[in-house]
């Protein structure tokens, strides 16, 4: 049963999902990697998904209700902001050890969004190690990586799935932490050395979308 069949069958047997309408001002961009990520997920019976971002009601409805995922919402952005506010960002790597208590190879998909951009390299490596560990073989990880330094006010992005995963809306919200650096492709590959790059796209908004798969 394909993704669209699954969506239509789930819609048919109970009332349709109610989607939040993203604010008109949120920039909308087309995503290719998300659709590929979704097709990785739907090959599983009840996929387990980790979302590193903040909770978005419509995303929960989409992933949970339509695709049947079990979702772990971790909102690491909020945790990182709290560490930044308390002036102890250097302790964030240790915090990640307590955060990722899932069994090894127990997760089918990880929405990393652009979180790596906000970490220093050692902490990013620490997070990548945890994400690689919990991902099951053939599991997928979707990451976004900026191509330019952040200008103006520091902000995080809340990514809202739109149009069945064809588009995403990025809703900016204030942050204490700025993007730390622009990672080169080879740095990203090195960071996720336990995974292989399945697909990589450079979008018009200068963002790189990279889909990783864990080798079987």
């Amino acid at each position, binding site marked *: *049963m*394909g*993704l*669209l*069949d*699954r969506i239509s069958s789930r819609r048919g*047997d*109970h*009332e349709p999902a*109610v989607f*939040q309408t993203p604010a008109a001002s949120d920039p909308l*961009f*087309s*995503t*290719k990697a998300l*659709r*590929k990520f*979704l*097709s*990785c997920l*739907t*090959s*599983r*019976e*009840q996929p387990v998904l980790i979302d590193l971002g903040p*909770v*978005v*009601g419509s995303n*929960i*409805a989409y992933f*949970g*209700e339509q695709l*049947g995922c*079990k*979702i*772990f*919402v*971790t*909102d690491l952005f*909020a945790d990182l902001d709290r560490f930044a506010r308390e002036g102890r960002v250097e302790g964030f790597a240790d915090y990640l050890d307590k955060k990722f208590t899932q069994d090894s190879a127990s997760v089918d998909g990880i929405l990393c969004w652009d979180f790596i951009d906000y970490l220093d390299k050692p902490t990013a490596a620490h997070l990548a190690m945890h994400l690689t560990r919990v991902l099951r073989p053939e599991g997928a990880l979707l990451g976004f990586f900026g191509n330019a330094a952040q200008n103006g006010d520091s902000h995080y992005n809340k990514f809202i799935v739109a*149009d069945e*995963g*064809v*588009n995403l809306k990025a809703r900016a919200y204030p942050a204490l932490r700025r993007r730390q650096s622009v990672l080169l*492709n*080879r740095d*990203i*590959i090195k960071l996720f050395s336990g995974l292989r*790059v399945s*697909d*990589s*796209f*450079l*979008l*018009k908004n200068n963002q*790189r*979308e*990279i889909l990783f798969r864990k080798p079987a």
Partner: protein
Amino acid sequence: MEKDIVNIGKSVVIKGELNGSEDLTIEGHVEGTIQLRDHVLTIGPNGKIKAQVFAKAVIVLGEVHGNVTASEKVDIRDNGSVEGDIVSPRIAIAEGAHFKGSVDMQRKGAAPQGKPAAAPAPVPQPQAAAQAAAPQRVGV
């Protein structure tokens, strides 16, 4: 006939097991377990719950720390907060709500989903959207 709704007021603190067979609104503090299997539990804006919750429907305007299981729906309203695992066939989370934990929306008795035999199912790409994105492959 008007439906009875019981309120637990702001100043009330309950520790232990709370069972009921009518709808309940909590504005106070509850620690322990709350069971309203066939009824609606509303955590008011002043309500603070540290408990395992079982109800037909749960509406959260206050704070919940603990796992929430609802046979019909969980609704986290603006400024409502849940830290814990939610099991419910329907979940609504408003913009401005806070949630950390896991969400499991599998319904009891739902037909098992078919599994593709080989490769993952291809996801059709609408032509217009694909062209609008004009993504380029990066040589990584």
